């Protein structure tokens, strides 16, 4: 399919372990900083054993910064933080247009549900109900929409770790078909005991800081955060005289249909997602200047994704890196956070480091970008997000 007009990116907002805003994040990247450290936000028996990428603000601090109500879930607080930044950066008065919010999350209000369960499990009459009232994934989106004043169209996507890219793509399609003028799209996920124990039970968490695309990699570090873009139609850009950064030029969603949690060795789902996104954008592999890899740091993902990248791009592959070495894997938020990074790469003509890389994976030999580098031509960026259930998505952003 092709796009009727351009889907412009008018604003971006992000919060993760390496910064509470686009500006702070850029500063961390410039200095090759990592946000990975010990668990401080909640109590867990794995506290000192499993490193994570926490946002460096407590719920209380987030509430004060945002002037938000008490008892909002951490996912919602992170979502509001990043979505507000994106809307503010766009400078657009949302109320003048048909505006929608499409958010992605995999844990929703699980952080509070866990607290509820501690009491509920011993006695079903116990546990404060206000801790579960915000549990549903869709509730997170309601809270963000209410904060931004978005009425009318809201939607939530949960395709595990590929969720946010699908949220941005759905937004682009609704604008393309003339159903909405503006969409705030992205995702949010908080760190929770549920996901920490889930990934730990699968034995895919690294007990050290993760090393994506390195021969010695042995798992991922979980992270948290939120990332949103404000995407707009041609009409909004023209009539509102909006300064834009770039545009969405292609996207694709496929399924690996190989295994519930593992990717096929040849990365058939990821290969076809990248290939279809390229086809939609009308670009050749050689036009891509930077790939923000999914790159979780697990043995399986990096080999599978790397094999697909090597097959599609050949020996002259573009600069590439997994920023999850800096942020940790932020699950449903990762596609939104990395979409913001892709837009930052275009705006600042730079690429981001894949920290802790030493030796390439022998089977594929890909060498990622190891240092922050500015002053290079970045016209087209590809961002990959893959998830459990074989969900594979790839998106391409281009410079205006």
């Amino acid at each position, binding site marked *: 399919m092709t796009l009727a007009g351009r889907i412009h990116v008018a604003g971006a907002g992000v919060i993760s372990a390496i910064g509470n805003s686009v500006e702070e994040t850029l500063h961390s990247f410039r200095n090759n900083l990592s946000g990975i450290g010990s668990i401080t936000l909640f109590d867990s028996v794995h506290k000192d054993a499993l490193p994570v990428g926490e946002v460096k603000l407590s719920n209380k601090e987030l509430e004060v910064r945002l002037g938000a109500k008490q008892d909002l879930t951490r996912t919602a607080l992170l979502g509001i933080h990043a979505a507000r930044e994106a809307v503010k950066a766009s400078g657009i008065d949302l109320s003048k247009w048909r505006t929608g919010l499409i958010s992605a999350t995999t844990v929703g209000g699980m952080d509070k549900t866990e607290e509820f369960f501690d009491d509920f499990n011993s006695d*079903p009459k116990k546990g404060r109900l206000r801790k579960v009232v915000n549990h549903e994934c869709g509730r997170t989106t309601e809270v963000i929409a209410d904060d931004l004043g978005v009425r009318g169209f809201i939607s939530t996507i949960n395709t595990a770790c590929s969720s946010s890219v699908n949220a941005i793509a759905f937004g682009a399609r609704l604008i393309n078909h003339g159903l909405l003028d503006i969409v705030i799209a992205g995702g949010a996920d908080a760190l929770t005991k549920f996901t920490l124990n*889930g990934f730990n*039970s699968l034995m895919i968490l690294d007990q050290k800081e993760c090393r994506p695309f390195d021969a010695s990699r042995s798992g991922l570090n979980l992270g948290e955060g939120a990332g949103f873009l404000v995407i707009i139609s041609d009409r909004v850009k023209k009539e509102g005289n909006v300064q834009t950064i770039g545009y969405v030029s292609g996207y694709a969603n496929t399924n690996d249909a190989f295994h519930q949690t593992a990717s096929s060795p040849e990365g058939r789902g990821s290969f076809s997602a990248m290939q279809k996104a390229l086809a939609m954008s009308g670009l050749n592999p050689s036009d891509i200047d930077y790939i923000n890899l999914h790159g979780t740091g697990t043995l399986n993902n990096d080999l599978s994704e790397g094999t697909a990248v090597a097959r599609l791009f050949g020996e002259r592959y573009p600069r590439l890196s997994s920023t999850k070495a800096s942020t940790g894997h932020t699950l449903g938020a990762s596609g939104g956070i990395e979409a913001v990074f892709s837009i930052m790469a275009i705006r600042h003509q730079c690429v981001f480091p894949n920290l802790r890389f030493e030796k390439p994976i022998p089977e594929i030999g890909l060498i990622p970008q190891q240092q922050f580098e500015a002053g290079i031509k970045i016209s087209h960026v590809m961002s990959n997000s893959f998830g459990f*259930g074989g969900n594979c998505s790839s998106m391409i952003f281009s410079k205006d």
Partner: protein
Amino acid sequence: MAVYINGKGNISPQKTWGDEPLLLSPLDYVGNKLTCVQPDYTEFVDVRQLRRMSRIIKMGVAAGTMALRKAGISVPDGIITGTGYGCLEDTGTFLTKMVESYESALNPTPFIQSTHNTIGSQIALLMQCQGYNQTYTQRAFSFENVLLDSILELKDNPAQSILAGGVDEITDVSHTIQERFGIYRQDSLSSLALFKSNKKGTLQGEGAAYFVLSGEKTSHCKVSLVSVATFYKPGNNLRSDIESFLKSCSLECGDDDLVLIGKSGDFSPDHEAELISSSLFPNSSRALFKHLCGEHPSASAFAFWLGARIIEEQQIPAIVLERDANRPLKNCLIYNPYFSNYHSFILLRAC
């Protein structure tokens, strides 16, 4: 552009599959929980695979398979699923074990199957469908988002067949928690009598319904999806929102032959729905459905099945009828309000 409903599969608290006449013998439930009448799953999934699946996944896979078989399709081009609550049973199991075992020696299977996209991805895995795969979870807009996405997909490429569905389950844990919020009736002796008394509270339901949607019509297809719209917190704009939605479908309010209304049995929101329906659709036949399927985020998928079946049969079963206008059944509007902030509209048409 028309979107044709080429196949249907519906597992619900009523017997809604097979070749039985529409709602021949409606099931009546005592209490506030309406759980699904389950088919023999071995007709749809290999026994060894069944053992690993939770109930919601079994229901989803079976309903999806029913729809595909009706449409005569083995592998769809895309799978789009809506679920408000997601896979609650596996979520509850993992949470409980995590608390009880102090975060040690946990079985990963319930965690793996706890994500909302497990239903759609299990179908993809079983059918080896490598195409478009999407899962929406916006409470009572989840299935509506699925329909909207399907319409966009089919506008871009009408030759595709999309497997589109809505799935939600009740678990003991979720029912216990939701009951504490006071949203369900405490003394219900007959689910079928839900609308016969003005009381507070509704009944909890569940269901799994999938449909094969395509821009190309099969020979036995009689119903098409015209349009869908969702309005979050519309406030005073609801009336004008409904009117502009119908206008976008080239209809006036009086043109709806049948309106399926998602009254829940809770008298206060039902009163609001009644005011809107009687003033906007005074000349239409009106019917209700939540006494059959219960209230749940995917109840509109049940209504979608019911509306399509009514158009096929050209007859409204007495058990759902609220007001009979004796009109030929060409346009059927589904109006589903959900806990006051959610209002959705789906328009079906005979084809």
